[in-house]
């Protein structure tokens, strides 16, 4: 039920905002890595970077219990169907981050007539935030989580309690 501007037709006001605030601050990612970008994802969860600071550090092994899928790495043709299946197994409010050039557009493995990879996660599942880099630094992943939080609450991070248009 959405108009073209992106504003929902029916709004539950405070309840929706409270739910969105809670969702944005507890994005549990799936324990799921495809290639080398997953190493950066692990680094982002460990000391020095620590995704848990923003409430996004509870890596759940079961897709039923997580909110965020981080597509970290090259998607081979063989891995495509399982990826879609995992996405479909996640419970409803769910988001996807495409981490690294391979997940965005195939990266260095994409050339004319290649037969092995799917050039971009957005060809098979909806992607919310793209993080470029080969691989992106852990700071990049942290930034993408903050951007996703802004997207969920529809507010700027530093202006959490003031309404911002757009």
């Amino acid at each position, binding site marked *: 039920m959405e108009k073209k501007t992106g504003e929902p037709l029916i709004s539950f006001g405070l309840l929706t905002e409270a739910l969105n605030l*809670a969702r944005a601050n507890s994005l549990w990612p799936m324990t799921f890595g495809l290639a080398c970008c997953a190493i950066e994802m692990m680094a982002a969860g460990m000391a020095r970077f620590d995704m848990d600071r923003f409430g996004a550090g509870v890596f759940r092994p079961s897709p*039923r219990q997580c909110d965020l899928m981080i597509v970290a790495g090259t998607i081979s043709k063989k891995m495509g169907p399982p990826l879609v299946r995992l996405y479909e197994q996640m419970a409803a409010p769910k988001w996807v981050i495409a981490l690294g050039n391979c997940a965005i557009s195939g990266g260095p493995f994409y050339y004319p007539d290649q037969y092995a990879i799917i050039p971009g996660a957005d060809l098979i599942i909806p992607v919310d935030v793209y993080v470029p880099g080969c691989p992106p630094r852990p700071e990049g992943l942290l930034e993408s989580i903050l951007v996703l939080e802004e997207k969920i609450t529809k507010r700027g991070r530093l202006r959490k309690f003031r309404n911002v248009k757009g």
Partner: protein
Amino acid sequence: MEFLTQMLGADVARMVVGLIAIIALVSVNALFLIWMERKVAAHMQLRPGPMEVGWHGAVQTVADAVKLMGKELITPTDVDRPVYHLAPIVIFLPVLLSFLVIPFSQTLIIRDMNVGVLLILAFASLTVLAILMAGWASNNKYSVLGAIRSVAQTVAYEIPLLITLMSPILMVGSFSLADIVAAQERYWFVLTQPLAFILYIVCATAETNRAPFDLPEAESELVAGFHTEYSGMKFGLFFLAEYTNMFIVSALATIFFLGGWRGPFLPGIFWFLIKVYAIIFLLMWFRWTFPRVRFDQLITFAWKILIPLAFANLLITALIMKLR
């Protein structure tokens, strides 16, 4: 309270007030414990843990709980529906009821039963049934494997747990938890029963399915174990029950070995909570420093080491009590 007493009669009023207090305690305790677990884990791994949601992440668990309530509840196609929906309730109710007999201070106890210990242990064994229900009903190979492991493990560890608790009971001569605390007026039982205390802590860790004995939900082999197919607040109830279980086993350890609510200066309830949370911190310390044991090691440890030791401890205690 007086109004309630007049309206409902003393017994019913006591039940109502007690149940409300228990539910409040369980929820607040679980919220606090999950935050504490994440902070302890983080500091053991040299990272700050939750920091941004509230002061040092203090409302992080509230955000998690609200999010879990707002999540979709998935019921997979081939599950055994009644059992699947019932399992989260069955795991949570006995945990709630165990609080009936725990003496939080000299006066703060809902019902001092003369079979208090047996009541708690009987309810604790119901947890296995719920885990088996969840695993079986999910119709998922990982869930079933997790449930089977959990049954084998809990049955094995319940025996030394019971026998270990028998030694202090033998010294007191009563199953009532209030009597056991009252008997520790001069010294704590951890001084006279150090082996029993150690055995109890090991068994309690296994009984609550926590690392290094967390084989029922070993995520590197079984996805999420018995609750793989549960989403949203149903999974949240399993989570809640696990942390409340931790509180109960720690409360039992406090009552049996650390003198319950006894302590100088502060009121009894504070001493009780301080001791309980100290033991919970110990359990968390185990979880984040020990690697997971293999399944055969787990079972061998229970049957070949813990049970003989517990029996030996009980025999020696009985002998000393007889000869004294």
